[in-house]
């Protein structure tokens, strides 16, 4: 019988679907019988999903302008 601790160790790989079917099956059996691990799995999955769905913020125009200016200067110096 898998303990909650054993389960938690595999949680990341479980969520990433990076486990072979035999281990996966054991974890699924555990979740079916352990409400705590079910909640942890569900909320950790949601955590990852929320961050994946975060808006990619565009680079601020002033930051980009300074970066490009610095690089142009450097590239011009190298070409001489």
């Amino acid at each position, binding site marked *: 019988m898998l303990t*909650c*601790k054993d389960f*938690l*160790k595999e*949680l*990341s*790989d479980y*969520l*990433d679907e*990076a486990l072979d079917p035999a281990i996966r099956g054991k974890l699924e059996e555990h979740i079916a019988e352990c*409400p*705590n691990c079910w*909640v*942890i799995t*569900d*909320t*950790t999955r*949601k*955590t*990852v999903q*929320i*961050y*994946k769905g*975060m*808006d*990619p*913020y*565009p*680079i601020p125009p002033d*930051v*980009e302008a*300074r*970066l*490009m200016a*610095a*690089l*142009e200067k*450097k*590239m011009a110096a*190298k*070409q001489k």
Partner: protein
Amino acid sequence: MPVSSLTATDEALLVAQAREGDAKAFSELVRRYEGKIFRLAQHVTQNREDAEDVLQETFMKAYEHLDQFQGNSKFYTWIVRIAVNQALMKLRRRKTDKSVSLDETIDTGEDTVVREIAAWDEDPEARYSREELGQILGSAIESLEPPYRSVFVLRDIDELSTEETADALGLSVPAVKSRLLRARLQLRDKLTRYFKRKGDDAFAYL
């Protein structure tokens, strides 16, 4: 712009042209990744001014050392490695009393602590405005220790593979995996405070 739509050869060509001294090709590479590098730098340094320095230093160094890029990893992974090193140097300079390193030993086994166990709303984000949500997510990431933060940002926000993250951070695959697990569990714990179903008390945990 969606990086997924770019073919590998497309990028290899740009790198080759940049190496030959084609400034336009290098600028194109910069434009592809500047947003991601800036975001990564902000997450790691937690400071906008430092992040901007890191951004500039990263592409300066990449330009200087372009001939050292082997082409057996992705260009992005290569510049991420430069950016992470620059960002950690900033952190070290800031916290002179405390050394910050990606290699610091972190015990992994015993303390995959889970403090709060409570079911969340079906649609937990719906309770907050976009700004509030951004604040909540940002401060949760900020509370992670730098080694966890970098792994989480690369794996779950930038969506690099485990192998690419290991490569970019100079870590082993098992180290990336254990840090990712810790990061995810810590974030889950913090977010539970905001997202748990109202009136639902924590189950007793063994």
